[in-house]
């Protein structure tokens, strides 16, 4: 496999993401009805007039799913970007400067890592004014630490490379080295941090809105599930008010994870060697466990 070819996993993920992005972008153009308007008899199963049925409040589920994609994806990606940026700044500074700076920042990171996210998010969201901005703040505040830890570890391993030593000898400032030498050389790590942060943000956002925290007048995937559960969708058998939204969240999440796996494989030759090795063994009908791989993929 050459590194220029996009792996199958990644292309599947990119196609799914593309479909959802189009949905979010073109939302109002493709949606047959106003997502928050009362359009028909409540709790109708899927039919030709309403492809995915209607909600307990007589709204069109298909239109709601499309409209939800816009807000949920926007919040997810913006929060993911913010978390990666903060994580990169904290992680890079901790990793490069070392010493006391590193001790303080690492301690801060570890402390925020062990405090459970959702209960903290609930307390924060309850006190902040309900709205998209507040939600973003809550998501970033509870989710930045993991990225900082991952990026710090990567910076530490890059810090002793020759090109960094060369930059130091040239007399570049430390901040220049962090942002112009080290960070650009770990693009794939930053990308996979961004992806996992986005997955977290979308999931946490849906969870908080399902609890009733956030702006309940907006149409998002989280509020869709909140209203479905409030209208006792399950006890009336209205599965169609739940399935489209849940499936959308899971598809976007899976697509992001698929892209992230392939990023690892493209940028980490060791992983690629392992999968090539496994494939080579499989085509020869050899049971992989019984043999010793030539490449060690750890350490």
């Amino acid at each position, binding site marked *: 496999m050459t590194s220029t070819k996009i792996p199958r996993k990644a292309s599947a993920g990119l196609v799914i993401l593309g479909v959802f992005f189009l949905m979010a972008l073109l939302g109002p153009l493709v949606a047959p009805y106003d997502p928050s308007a009362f359009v028909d008899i409540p709790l109708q199963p899927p039919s030709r007039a309403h492809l995915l049925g209607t909600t307990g409040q007589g709204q069109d589920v298909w239109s709601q799913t499309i409209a939800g994609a816009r807000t949920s994806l926007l919040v997810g990606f913006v929060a993911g970007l913010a978390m990666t940026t903060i994580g990169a700044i904290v992680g890079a500074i901790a990793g490069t400067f070392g010493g006391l700076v590193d001790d303080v920042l690492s301690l801060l990171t570890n402390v925020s890592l062990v405090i459970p996210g959702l209960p903290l998010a609930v307390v924060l969201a309850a006190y902040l004014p309900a709205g998209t901005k507040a939600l973003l703040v809550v998501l970033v505040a509870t989710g930045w630490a993991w990225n900082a830890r991952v990026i710090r570890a990567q910076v530490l391993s890059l810090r002793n490379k020759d090109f960094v030593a060369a930059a130091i000898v040239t007399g570049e400032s430390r901040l220049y080295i962090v942002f112009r030498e080290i960070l650009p050389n770990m693009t794939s790590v930053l990308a996979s941090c961004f992806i996992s942060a986005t997955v977290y943000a979308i999931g946490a956002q849906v969870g908080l809105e399902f609890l009733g925290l956030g702006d309940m007048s907006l149409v998002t995937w989280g509020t869709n599930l909140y209203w479905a559960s409030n209208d006792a969708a399950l006890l009336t058998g209205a599965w169609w008010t739940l399935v489209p939204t849940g499936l959308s969240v*899971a598809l976007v999440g899976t697509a992001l994870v698929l892209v992230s796996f392939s990023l690892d494989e493209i940028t980490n030759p060791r992983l690629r060697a392992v999968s090539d090795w496994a494939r080579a063994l499989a085509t020869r009908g050899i049971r992989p466990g*019984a043999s010793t791989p030539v490449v060690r993929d*750890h350490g």
Partner: protein
Amino acid sequence: MRYLLRQLGLYVLAAWASLTLNFIVPRLAPGDPASAMFARYKGQLQPEALAALREAFGFTGGPLHEQYASYLAHLFRGDLGVSVAYFPAKVTDVLGMGLGWTALLTGSSVVVAFALGSLLGVIAAWRRGGAFDTTLPPLLVFLGAFPYFWLAMMLLYGFGFTLDVLPLRHAYDDTLAPSLSFSFLASVAEHLLLPATSIVLASVGGWMLSMRSSMIGVLAEDYVTMAHAKGLSPLRIMFHYAARNALLPNVTGFGMALGFVLGGSLLTEIVFSYPGQGYLLVQAVRSQDYPLMQGIFLTITMAVLAANFLVDVLYVWLDPRTRGR
């Protein structure tokens, strides 16, 4: 020992940080924090309850450091204030009702997910590239991408509503009084099955993937090759040689995952009206019961920190190399 002390220091600091966050967040809210908080209770609260709340949360009107001191003093006496939703019950009493159920649900599902995921990871790594290894991980990743509570809703719909084989809500049959009898315990187990399954389904994939990758690393070690060469049975090599060592990184992840799974299980409890902390949480959110919300945050944080420390102790016991540090 130094390792454990350092970890303990981290947890004490994290505990202090969450106590302080709990103090600061209400005061960071826009506008005058005290009046903003109490404006929402207008007409719902007796004056003495309001006074008790003010005092318990340190809204005494004095300078900030005095408020903080009084807040800490109340906390150490185990006083978290009075619940608004369950007025006039104390927050600590309300929390006590739900703590056991959450511990039961989260504890049992985390242990099952960990054991099952690790076992699947071992098998997948052993038969790397095989049918099992190529089909199961993507499937579990897909399942793991669903929100926990959404899987719970689907299980509830399928098994509880459509097939009507398992109970829809609560932790035990309403007609039974809590006792140590067989019928009560059976009812608890029956009610536990669906919520626990949804958490296991959503979290097993993560355990499997991390176990698989650490197992692949261990399988390349010389001592595994040596074991093969000695002609040991594959099962013995798989579990006694490889899996035992590959399990260590997964144990470290255990504490970290606990906080995440707890968050998911709080939402799952809501779906099943399971009378744990999550169920209390939604009551607190709906009735804007801030003291209860903050109490839940504090108890869950303390529980997660304690569990993390236990995992660290376990890790030292499992891995002799950490004892030297």
